């Protein structure tokens, strides 16, 4: 799960390439234009490497932090079918983190360092996971709509230029589509269930709509900077384009279930073909991403505690005395 890469609009346009060898840069850009994938040992601009590390790392953090709100419901999932499916789903998310950390490591930043930057608050992760999953229905809405948003984003990124990242994304997208099916099935059962179940899912949807609208990030104005990153196939689509794709695919499905979205202005403009909506509260988005959301402290505290509790294990793996032994049976 993930929101789109954030690009600082205040960066000077020529800063991305100013120190690069023009011949190598031209070759590099020609390869990307031709649809080649860039591999770890290939030459690449410093800024390409930097942006990718940041983006893949944030994506990895989002997967691992994203496993927490749903993870707390594993022990409460109602019935065998949901229990097994939810464990498998959350496990997949942790697996995505593992794949993505490995992809980012190919660019030169070790996993341990990335995790340290996560728990120190230095690197970011998707803002949606700073909101609580209050009831079982919240997990259903997350698995359906947040995973749906993640798919829109990840499908776009899977057409990118960096080999290890796009290969990881291909695998991840295949699994995310199962999550989406699981989430949708879950929401359908609630929305067509008892009055209590319908109430639960409506309330969860109302709670999650603002974070969902925040998911793809604020409108990004097209700068020279974003143009370069798009030319390098690091950034694949604008935040607004992805939000439109998402709304177009899922709002009709939500309405079909008889559920209500808490935005009276939400409608598709038949002339432009675009969705219109009340502008999300970007001040809140900024506040939450900078650490002041309902769950930021809790999420990082859980992660920090897991890291601390597991330190002796990781040390034991590094010990010179530790040895690999073939299993006996």
């Amino acid at each position: 799960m993930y929101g789109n890469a954030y690009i600082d609009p205040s960066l000077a346009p020529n800063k991305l390439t100013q120190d690069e060898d023009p011949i190598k840069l031209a070759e590099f850009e020609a390869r990307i234009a031709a649809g080649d994938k860039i591999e770890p040992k290939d030459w690449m601009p410093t800024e390409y490497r930097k942006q990718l590390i940041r983006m893949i790392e944030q994506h990895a953090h989002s997967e691992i932090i994203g496993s927490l709100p749903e993870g707390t419901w594993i022990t409460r999932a109602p019935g065998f079918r949901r229990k097994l499916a939810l464990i498998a789903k959350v496990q997949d998310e942790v697996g995505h983190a593992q794949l993505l950390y490995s992809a980012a490591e190919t660019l030169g930043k070790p996993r341990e360092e990335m995790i340290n930057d996560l728990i120190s608050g230095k690197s970011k992760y998707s803002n949606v996971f700073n909101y609580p999953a209050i009831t079982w229905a919240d997990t259903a809405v997350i698995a359906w709509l947040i995973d749906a948003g993640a798919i829109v984003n990840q499908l776009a990124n899977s057409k990118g230029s960096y080999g290890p990242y796009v290969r990881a994304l291909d695998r991840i997208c295949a699994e995310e589509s199962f999550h989406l099916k699981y989430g949708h099935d879950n929401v359908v059962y609630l929305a067509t269930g008892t009055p209590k179940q319908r109430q639960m899912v409506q309330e969860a949807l109302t709670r999650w709509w603002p974070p969902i609208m925040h998911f793809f990030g604020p409108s990004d104005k097209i700068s020279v900077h974003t143009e370069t990153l798009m030319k390098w196939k690091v950034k694949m689509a604008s935040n607004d384009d992805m939000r439109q794709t998402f709304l177009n695919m899922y709002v009709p499905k939500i309405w079909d279930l008889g559920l209500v979205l808490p935005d009276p202005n939400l409608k598709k403009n038949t002339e432009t073909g675009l969705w219109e909506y009340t502008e999300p509260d970007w001040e809140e988005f900024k506040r939450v991403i900078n650490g002041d959301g309902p769950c930021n402290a809790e999420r990082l505290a859980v992660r920090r505690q897991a890291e601390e509790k597991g330190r002796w294990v990781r040390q034991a793996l590094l010990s010179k005395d530790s040895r690999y032994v073939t299993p006996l049976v």
Partner: protein
Amino acid sequence: MNISEKGFFAIKEMLYKIADDQLILGHRNSEWTGLGPVLEEDIAFSSMAQDKIGHSLAMYEILSQMGESDPDTIAFMRNDDQFHCCHLVEYPIGEYEFSLMRHFFFDMAEAIRFEMLANSTFEPLAMVARKIKGEIKYHTMHAQIWINQLGAATEESNLRMQKALNETFPLALGIFEPGTHEEILAEEGIFEGEKALQDKWLQLVTPILEKAGLQVPSISSITPSYGGRFGSHTPHLQPMLEEMTEVFRIDPSAEW
């Protein structure tokens, strides 16, 4: 061989304890999702949790076919005194070394149990046992690799592992608490018995632990933690069940 009416009764008792162990330990292991010492261990514990819960479902399904309720009702609608799990599986996940040692002891026993059950005269169980034992092989491999790795890697890891061993050993012996119908099960070729299982288990786990630099207490000096098979549990089980059934009980007639 035909199974007698007494035999069926004994089978039900046995299936309940096997299934309850798997469900409760699977539930506990799933609590590691997102919290493991390395991501790979989160994923491993989560996989094994899915297998365990899946195996318990297979056992409850056999019970359903024998006239008991459907699996969801059996699993989600009983109180602790109606459960037949051993104390070992009931404890919270604790520190990683506790969960690892529990996983090692339990899965080694389970691997042998299903090996024995694969030849049971009760064919529906024998069939499932043959499938399950193939899957548990990976769990015991996983446990042994980690026991080997952590047993003597550092002073701290050795201390932690030895302490976990000492704590879990009496609980692990509780796995083998004899049932009321051991003789019938043995006579009718359904299952050789808990005593035989415990002997095989001890023979298997002792050299592995010793090779990893850990000391195995003499079994005669230990009081096994018994009672679980007859509905007497640690204080950890009931709160766990309340959490597990929290959503299900909002409306047990609803479809989730």
